[in-house]
């Protein structure tokens, strides 16, 4: 009798565990389907200086540039009809919009315990220039990530992870801001 009850409960529990995930995925897909990509021939400047950016704060060093150059490119490629990565603004000739990112500031909370959750906030400024070199859009985007503080053994790995979380959040918010930008949509009309 008890075995019968258990065998009945098992699929119910399984469905309870799986269904929210299914619906969450469906919602996520619905959201991304609504986001219209920008019909722009764009170039993003990920130069050496940017990709090697290290920010120091309160005796901690955050290697944000390296992670940003790995994370940003694929996310931005999904956003624009055409995207090229260049090493300088001069190399972006022919692009309708040239996106120049710059790290502005960074701040991280600290915790007393190794397994307590800390928060990293990264501020990045996007400057967009049109084909004539004039600035048409400027926006500062804030990305946040949360992770354990880490102990002596896990600190470096936890630090790398929290940077990736914050930059992942930052690029998603950046893309949303770009999509919502009236000024960038105006650029679509220009040759």
């Amino acid at each position, binding site marked *: 009798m008890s075995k019968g009850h258990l065998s009945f409960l098992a699929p119910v529990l399984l469905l309870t565990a799986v269904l929210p995930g299914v619906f969450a995925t469906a919602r996520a897909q619905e959201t991304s389907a609504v986001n219209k990509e920008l019909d722009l021939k764009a170039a993003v400047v990920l130069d050496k200086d940017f990709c090697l950016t290290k920010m120091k704060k309160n005796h901690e060093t955050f290697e944000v540039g390296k992670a940003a150059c790995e994370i940003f490119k694929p996310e931005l490629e999904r956003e624009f009809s055409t995207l090229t990565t260049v090493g300088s603004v001069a190399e972006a000739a022919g692009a309708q919009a040239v996106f120049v990112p710059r790290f*502005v*500031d960074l*701040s991280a*909370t600290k*915790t007393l315990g190794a397994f307590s959750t800390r928060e990293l906030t990264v501020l990045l400024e996007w400057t967009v220039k049109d084909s004539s070199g*004039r*600035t*048409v859009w400027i926006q500062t985007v804030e990305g946040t990530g949360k992770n354990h503080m880490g102990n002596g053994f896990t600190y470096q790995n936890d630090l790398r992870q929290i940077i990736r979380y914050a930059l992942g959040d930052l690029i998603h918010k950046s893309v949303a801001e770009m999509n919502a930008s009236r000024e960038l949509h105006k650029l679509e009309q220009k040759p």
Partner: protein
Amino acid sequence: MPQFLAASINVVVERAEQLLQGSAEMRIKLRFDCNSCRSRPDVVRLGLCRRVAGGVLMVGSKLVSVASLFTLLLVACPSYAGPTKLLDYPPRKVSDCAIKAEKSGLVVGIQPVEELSDQKSYFGSDLKQKGLIPVYVVIEDRSEGDSFLFDKSAVRVGVGAGAGTGNNVSSKSVETLQVVSALAISPVGMIIGAKLAKDEAQVQTNLVKKELQSKTLSPGGSASGFLYVSRPKVGTRDPIHLKIFVTRSGDDEPISLEFDF
């Protein structure tokens, strides 16, 4: 004693930067402040301000051992949480600000926040002691169809009314955490230092999050936040001249708005 244990403890490190640059000695002021015993100052009212040397805190002729203070901190400190809850500054419209200016469809209002109580509530810190004034700035685009670009790096500050271009506005939160490394000399210092570092990092994060950042203003849009302007740490300050530059999207000609306060 139970009342004493229930007391909230505020740990204040005074002028740590100066001490760090000077001798190796540190002055730590521990203010044991018992809310429940305010009517009985004879029970709990300790003001300690002595030198820390070799991990021992000297209190008059008595020696309080590191261990006992450590235990005290662990037992009596649950209520010590530093600047845990920092309030959001209530958003203001330009019309609510003390100082306003308008040009080319762009309206800007500024409101310096100099009251200590306000600074404690919104920033968890006395910013005057850190040599800063938080200045709330709100920019509204009331033009018919123009977009404006506000570039924070173009903001200029001068001391004295009518001063021209000066230094850039301070865009950074305050660097005070050198204190921590020095405190870490003693075991007690390590505990206090770690707690201070945690609180200070929280204050810094809050400053960064509340700062006004570069932004594009579409028609009907607005941008708001704080600029942190330098001021002397002590005494009265001179009048400050703030110059904000904004350009139209796709245009190189800057529009400037000036403020004295």
